[in-house]
């Protein structure tokens, strides 16, 4: 009996010791040493929350670093400064590099029945200006923004609604908030963790001054006039943009804070003194003092990167820049790595099942036609020609890195087989051909598939050229038509486009807890069934219901996933959906696992050699935690 008491006491003591040791072991950031000494800034122990998020770098396979340095990034337009919010990746909950969902800004969270979410904040957590971050900031958002008629005409954002109903929001105490829905909200956490996150909090202490309910009307009118906006609503929105940090005065929870007022060709982000993460040695993160974002023409960026103007660059670099960058490596002091893009397919064709023309609609909805087209693509050749044979030939589906992967999905109707394709087309009844060898449709017209592109990628046009040749072998003529962004989409929505080309599944490394909504008609943005997606998105108010049994099935499964409460169920649903999706060839995938060049300065550490460069999940660099990147001596 005594032994266990002794052990317990020892453990307890050591824990206390460790905790206090940890607390007293916080190292001051050199940049702030002066300010702290002068009393202008609280010391690090007070700047951090009572229970900061401790990142044990050696455990994560990273090297503990030193404070200092300025990192240069190159971006295109001013809007791109939102990438700092993406890369910074300070989120309520976020994905770590192993694709596990972990609490980040919140200390912990509980989910009951998939519909009751309780978040526990970190006590003493402060905004970047030193003001406390508490449940009041969640309350302000919910009461005064999301449910304020003028600021949110349509009510709370769609991602917070389940079956059109908002949650019940409760403030339990200063550091605890709870959201309760009637039915499970399976996408809630995923939405909070996204590259562009769902924001459910706002710096109340700062934004109240722009809100009609809290500010003196005269003063408010003055501010509106000074800012040259229409009314206080625009002012509030303008000043309160958290995602695109154009307002240097807006407090934030991200690792770096914007200090430049637009417009400018260069934005300087400085360290957030109140950031909530520390390394295992007690150094407050981020390591890097400042991030300089240089704007310019996006076409120049490969050249500029090759000339050594960036310390960390992936955006606007394409695979075909690799050779050029590799050649400049030694001269300019950086190295180029190849990360993997986790998309279902690098280039995918989307037959428009909602095409206006009835003959085409019937043909496209005939699964044999889609299968034939998919079989007649020589993916090997495309891989060799465009990607040096480095990536994977596959249907539009998940990557092997996902636990949901099965070879059957990858190979579904994806092996090059001209005779099989010919047979399928003969089965449909298009046996007659014209003088050029092109099959004739039931109307007597030659089978000419016009594929619309958004006109922005030579990669897509190249792949289409290669496909053109192989489709000619089965008597199908491919005509590619370049369009412009907005017209591209409009034509698809209105059914004028017969087939379009775009990238495949956005998230190709899903785990069962992530939503399979891409596989079912859920949104107007899906290029193969915009009308069916719109129907689902607007709950039947617009669009048309799916007319294909299998698409309807996918929708049902998606809804079932949202209702499900355990992982086993979710995994089953995923597999059902994946198998229907690939077997029915609702989109024609070509190759996936393509590679993204990432340029890293030789003095920058903790950037992984190999990783996933993906928007969702991953937030590009976000999940690899740029706040842990650091410069060896001789920083810029």
């Amino acid at each position, binding site marked *: 009996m005594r032994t266990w008491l002794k052990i317990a006491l020892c453990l307890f003591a050591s824990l206390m010791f460790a905790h206090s040791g940890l607390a007293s072991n916080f190292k001051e950031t050199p940049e702030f040493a002066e300010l702290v000494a002068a009393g202008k800034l609280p010391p690090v122990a007070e700047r951090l929350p009572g229970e900061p998020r401790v990142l044990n770098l050696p455990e994560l396979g990273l090297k503990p670093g030193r404070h200092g340095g300025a990192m240069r990034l190159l971006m295109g337009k001013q809007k791109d400064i939102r990438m700092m919010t993406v890369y910074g990746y300070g989120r309520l909950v976020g994905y770590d590099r192993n694709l596990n969902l972990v609490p980040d800004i919140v200390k912990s969270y509980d989910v009951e029945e998939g519909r009751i979410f309780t978040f526990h904040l970190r006590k003493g957590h402060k905004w970047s200006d030193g003001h406390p971050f508490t449940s009041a900031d969640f309350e302000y958002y919910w009461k005064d923004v999301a449910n304020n008629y003028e600021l949110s005409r349509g009510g709370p954002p769609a991602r917070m609604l389940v079956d059109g109903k908002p949650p019940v929001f409760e403030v339990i105490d200063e550091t605890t908030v709870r959201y309760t829905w009637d039915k499970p909200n399976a996408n809630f956490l995923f939405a909070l963790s996204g590259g562009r996150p769902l924001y459910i909090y706002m710096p109340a202490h700062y934004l109240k001054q722009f809100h009609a309910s809290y500010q003196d009307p005269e003063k408010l009118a003055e501010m509106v006039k000074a800012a040259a906006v229409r009314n206080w609503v625009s002012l509030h929105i303008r000043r309160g943009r958290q995602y695109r940090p154009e307002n240097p005065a807006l407090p934030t929870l991200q690792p770096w804070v914007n200090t430049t007022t637009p417009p400018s060709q260069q934005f300087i982000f400085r360290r957030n003194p109140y950031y909530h993460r520390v390394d295992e040695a007690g150094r407050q993160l981020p390591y890097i003092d400042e991030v300089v974002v240089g704007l310019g023409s996006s076409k120049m960026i490969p050249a500029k990167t090759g000339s050594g103007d960036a310390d960390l660059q992936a955006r606007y670099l394409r695979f075909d*820049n*690799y050779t050029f960058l590799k050649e400049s490596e030694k001269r300019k002091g950086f190295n180029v790595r190849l990360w993997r893009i986790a998309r279902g397919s690098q280039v995918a064709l989307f037959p428009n099942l909602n095409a206006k023309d009835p003959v085409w609609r019937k043909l496209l909805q005939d699964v044999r036609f889609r299968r034939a087209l998919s079989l007649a693509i020589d993916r090997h050749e495309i891989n*060799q*020609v465009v990607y040096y044979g480095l990536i994977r030939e596959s249907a539009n589906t998940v990557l092997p890195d996902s636990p949901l992967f099965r070879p059957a999905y990858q190979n579904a109707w994806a092996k090059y087989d001209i005779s099989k394709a010919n047979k399928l087309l003969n089965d449909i009844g298009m046996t007659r051909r014209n003088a050029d060898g092109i099959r004739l449709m039931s109307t007597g017209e030659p089978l000419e598939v016009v594929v619309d592109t958004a006109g922005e990628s030579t990669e897509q046009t*190249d792949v289409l050229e290669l496909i053109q*040749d192989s489709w000619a072998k089965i008597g199908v003529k491919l005509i590619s038509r370049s369009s412009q962004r907005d*017209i591209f989409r409009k034509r698809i929505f209105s059914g004028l486009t017969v087939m379009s080309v775009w990238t495949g599944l956005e998230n190709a490394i899903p785990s069962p807890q992530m939503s399979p909504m891409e596989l079912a008609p859920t949104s107007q943005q899906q290029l193969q069934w915009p009308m069916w997606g719109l129907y689902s998105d607007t709950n039947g108010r617009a669009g048309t219901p799916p007319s294909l049994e299998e698409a309807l099935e996918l929708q049902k499964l998606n809804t079932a996933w949202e209702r499900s409460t355990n992982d086993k169920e979710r995994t089953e649903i995923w597999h059902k959906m994946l198998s229907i999706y690939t077997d029915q060839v609702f989109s024609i995938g070509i190759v996936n696992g393509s590679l993204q060049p990432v340029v890293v300065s030789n003095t920058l550490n903790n950037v992984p050699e190999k990783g996933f460069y993906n928007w969702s999940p991953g937030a590009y660099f976000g999940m690899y935690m740029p706040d842990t990147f650091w410069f060896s001596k001789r920083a810029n």
Partner: protein
Amino acid sequence: MNQEKTPPSEAETEHFVSQAPFDLQSIEQLSEDQEKLYLASQWTLMWWKFKRHRLAVVSGLFLIALYLSVLISEFLAPYNLHSRHVDHIYAPPQAIHLFHDGSFVGPFVYATNFKLDMTNLSRVYTENRTKIYPIRFLCRGDDYKLWGQFESNLHLFCPAPNGTLFLLGTDRLGRDVLSRIIYGARISLTISLLGVTVTFLLGITFGGIAGYYGGVVDLIIQRIIEVIQSLPTIPLWLVLAAIMPVTWSPLLVYFGITIILGLLDWTGLARAVRSKLLSLREEDYVLAAQLMGATPRRIIGRHLIPGFMSHLIASATISIPTMILGETALSFLKLGLRPPITSWGVLLVEAQNINVVVLYPWLMLPVVPVIMVIIAFSFLGDGLRDAADPYK
């Protein structure tokens, strides 16, 4: 005349008429050449003056050859426009050799060995000096359809049966650059010619009206010209190209582009026409025509314009380079012709990135025919302008 005698009466005065045959040339002897010079018509004089400008003559011949080649592009190009070679992507140009191992073999190229460098992900091509691919002439090669109508596969020169002949290298899909340049000539040269025709028509119409009527009409047209000239061209193009519906077939897009290009330069021509007309208008023959009841259109068209047609032709010739450059600029802004149509502009835009400048510079070769054609047109225009006023 003798002062002593008074003039005799008519009966007595001898009326001297020499019976000797009259020689026209006895007073002043003209050489052959001089005679030709004085009797020559205006056009002949212009031709002679033009011949003096040797470069202009050379340019003229060069351009005529080029335009004629447009008719037989398919025959001249060693490869079809779309033929791809997966094993020869980004292959550098192959040099033509005549001598192999010391003996004369006839024109040939060496085979190339291809290796994929996986560290740099670059394609490395080395010459294989043991394998020879002699160039064949008047041979059967890739299939093509002459003007999209007549099937054939006769080429002026083609590679050896299993060999390659990439005289200017290949691009990222393994397409022969030389063939694409030859095909591109067809589009670039004709589009600029059509554009110039549009310019011509617009310029003559507006300039003619302004110059002939003068006064208020002139003032208004001049203001319009000024307005259009002040508008920055690039934004103008952007807007005009944005209006062009995407659904148009490539052919319609092509014509749309010619019209846009034609709208570029007509103001200069209009101004020249106007100023010339303002001075010529005062001539007597115009007055005569008016008195005889000729309509203004007839006067302008039949009497005034031909007087300085030569100037107009010279100006038009100088506009063509602007058209060609305009087409390349439109392609650069992604507004003009787009693949799969191939023009020099499209080829140059594909070459306009840092990869090409550093690693595959041969893709910039389409700039050479562009430069040559523009220079040729400039010299031709110079010569024509010098010749236009032969009486100087």
